[in-house]
């Protein structure tokens, strides 16, 4: 499989050894050299050699190829979370680039294997994807390309409506529902004198009551879903009037969305971790003196941050370094937090040397949200010149809004939670008592883009068949937007 040149193979062994010595732990990693065109193909397939047929991949491919051909962008590395890990190197990249990429890839592979959020992912996804492709091709043969493709379009437009935390919650078998608990364990009132028993708790009455309660429970109208359901796709699979092939297509889209979700949840950490290690391994072990300039050039290119672009590589690596330094010097805990003297804080060094241990622990347990929440400090924001920007309607430009630490943190966390996408759940499948679907948008101060929302609702309606509604906020008013297949309605709440 691997087709590295002897020179690269020699380096690979060296880097592998250095990575293992540093404590990185990964599945076997197979590197392959591919041409730029192959790399673009693989990249448009999300790293996999085979995917189901869909024009969206072709669109991504066109964009990647164009921007490569015009010299605007270039993919250096591509690695996928499988066991064994597959990583691709681009033919014709400079030697130093290939070395850097290999070191970077080992960082990613370690993260894939050890980070808890990747725990439930399918490590044999390559087979799974090929399997999906076969199934969808079969449906296309049977029901027609256009029919299946249209349905995939509909599913993809709802692809982000999954419950990202569901894979980490192991639900024991659904607890049996016995209805509301009786007043006391056996439904009897307390009796102080035993001879009063049959007067206070007459057996016929007790029996009657029990039957009445059971009857009531049976007749009780419970909504579907009983609780708001974040996994809209799962809900649709179970309750929407779909034919079996449609159900299967939906389940494929859902499975793939869940597979890719952890990568979105750990973008900053994953890139930060890989960058931390490529930098460390290269500078300490792998590189020779003549390569330092090229390395610095490449490394800083990757770390560069455009004024209003957020570069996860940069923030990630800086945070990991910051954590390592703080735990080396003992800058944590109550004593540190309560210290208000700046000079003391500056000179703070308890020489604990816990840094390395700490960052390994962090890479194991955290995701981007908890990572930023716990380790982003005010000092870090000042040092890295972070700010919040907003769009100014009047000047038609983005402008710096504030450098206030709590606001930066809030904004960052907001962007990371649910990938900065609106949180939507199914509230009621029998809205208005007419079998209409009601979704709820958990409003957090930002409205959804109306044209996209309406287009998405059309797709939702195609699946549900009956009218669909979304409870959200539009133009600062709480509104239920409805779509019945022909017209939109809008009702203020």
């Amino acid at each position, binding site marked *: 499989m691997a087709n590295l040149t002897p020179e690269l193979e020699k380096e690979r062994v060296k880097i592998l050894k250095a990575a293992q010595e540093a404590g990185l732990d990964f599945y076997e990693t197979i590197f392959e050299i591919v041409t730029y065109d192959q790399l673009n193909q693989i990249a*448009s*397939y*999300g*790293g996999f050699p*085979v995917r189901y047929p*869909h*024009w*969206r*991949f*072709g669109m*991504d*491919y*066109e964009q990647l190829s*164009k921007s490569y051909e015009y010299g605007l962008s270039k993919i*250096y590395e591509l690695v996928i979370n499988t066991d064994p890990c597959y990583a691709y190197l681009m033919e014709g990249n400079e030697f130093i680039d290939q070395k850097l990429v290999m070191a970077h890839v080992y960082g990613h592979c370690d993260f894939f294997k050890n980070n808890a959020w990747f725990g439930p992912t399918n490590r044999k996804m390559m087979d799974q994807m090929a399997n999906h492709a076969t199934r969808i091709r079969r449906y296309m043969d049977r029901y027609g390309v256009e029919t299946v493709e249209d349905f995939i379009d509909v599913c993809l437009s709802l692809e*982000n409506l999954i419950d990202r935390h569901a894979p980490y919650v192991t639900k024991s078998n659904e607890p049996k529902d016995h209805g509301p608990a009786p007043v006391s364990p056996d439904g009897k009132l307390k009796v102080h004198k035993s001879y009063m028993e049959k007067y206070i708790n007459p057996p016929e009455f007790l029996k009657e009551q029990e039957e009445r309660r059971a009857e009531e429970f049976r007749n009780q109208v419970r909504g579907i879903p009983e609780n708001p359901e974040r996994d809209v796709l799962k809900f649709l699979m179970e309750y929407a009037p779909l034919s079996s092939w449609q159900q299967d297509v939906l389940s494929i889209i859902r499975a793939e969305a869940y597979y*890719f979700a952890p*990568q*979105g949840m750990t*973008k900053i950490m994953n*890139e930060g971790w890989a960058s931390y290690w490529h930098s460390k391994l290269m500078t300490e072990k792998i590189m020779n003196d003549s390569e330092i300039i090229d390395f610095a050039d490449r490394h800083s290119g*990757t770390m560069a*941050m*455009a*004024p*209003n*672009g*957020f*570069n996860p*590589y*940069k923030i990630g690596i800086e945070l990991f370094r910051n954590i390592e330094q703080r735990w080396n010097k003992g800058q944590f805990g109550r004593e540190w937090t309560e210290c208000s003297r700046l000079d003391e804080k500056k000179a703070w060094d308890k020489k604990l040397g816990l840094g390395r241990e700490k960052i390994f622990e962090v890479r194991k347990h955290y995701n981007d949200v908890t990572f930023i929440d716990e380790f982003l400090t005010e000092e870090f924001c000042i040092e890295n*010149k*972070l*700010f919040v*920007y907003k769009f100014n309607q009047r*000047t038609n*430009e*983005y*402008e*710096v809004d*504030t450098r206030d630490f709590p606001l930066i943190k809030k*904004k*960052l966390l907001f*962007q990371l939670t649910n990938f*900065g*996408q*609106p949180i*939507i759940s199914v509230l009621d499948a029998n809205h208005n008592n007419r079998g209409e679907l009601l979704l709820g948008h958990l409003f957090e101060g*930002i*409205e*959804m*883009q109306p*044209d*996209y*929302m309406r*287009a*998405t609702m*059309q*797709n939702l309606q195609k699946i549900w068949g009956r009218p669909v509604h*979304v409870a959200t906020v539009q133009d600062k008013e709480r509104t239920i937007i409805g779509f019945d297949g022909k017209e939109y309605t809008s009702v203020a709440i």
Partner: protein
Amino acid sequence: MGIREDHNRFREIVKGRIKKNFKKYVTQGEMIGRREKEFVKIPIPSIDLPRFKYGPKQSGGVGQGQGQPGDAVDGEQQPGQGQAGDSPGEHVLEADVTIEELADILGEQLELPRIEPRGNKKVDSISNKYTGRAPVGPENLRHFKSSYKEALKRSIASGTYDPLNPMVVPIKRDMRYRTIRKVTKPMANAVVIYMMDVSGSMGEEQKEIVRLESFWINAWLQRNYKGLETRFIIHDAAAKEVDEKTFFSTSESGGTLISSAYKLCQKIIESEYNPNEWNIYPFHFSDGDNWSGEDTKLCIQLLKDYFIPRVNQFSYGQVESKYGSGQFLKDLEKSLPGEESLVISRIENKDKIVDSIKDFLGKGR
């Protein structure tokens, strides 16, 4: 490889979208402004997969760098070097479409016939194509279908063919191989001569119409001829030859003598484009307000005696404006009725561009 399939499918969808909104694209000047050498960039917003998402402008974000609150953040939003397999990027899709593809769509939408080049068809291109079949040849050029047919024919003829057990065993004599066949193509050159009235009565809107029409006419003729040349003549009371840019940006005032342009056009054809070798397409756009009846007579004379016998098609487009009387069109219709190679079209407004293109190109000449 799968990606080719997906890519083709994507291109098809793009073309489908363009076809669907074709009239809109034809009447939009914006698109032509985005022309690069051989591509036209067409914004196709509806091809994106819709999702529930926040409006980008509302949300803002976290950045890094210098600046006080209130300072503009410069630089473009760059996603950085992303890792694949992440959420797809946010973008308004701009599809690059080649002018040829556009011309094909134009032809398909307006049901334009292919142009029959006229005159003597000079043979000047020869190409080799593997379309012939020969009983001998190298194995890698073996043509399976023909070989199978030969074998089938032989087995039926010899009576060994059994429909219940349709096995056909080819022997050496059945083999057929691809072979070179020389294909000769008549090559024809064409020239388009645009003439436009730039007198005071032709406003910006009228010129925009001319610009749009000429773009599509060029695209179609280019599709039909290799090596299309274009010439531009503007006129008011006098005519002169200009380049493309000047053609569309000049604004003059004063009277109109259409014959001046026709005379210049005649001179150009006489000196450079021998009608026996060239397919000639003069296009004249005006608001139809000629200076005098005398001049109009002269024009009609020129058309009748010089242009009509020599050119493929003489096209006159009358762009209606509120100042023009439009008399010229009526005069032409009256004095040259039933002339096959004279095409007259009235363009009232932008929405009529499509119809007028069909008028001009629908004859297949």
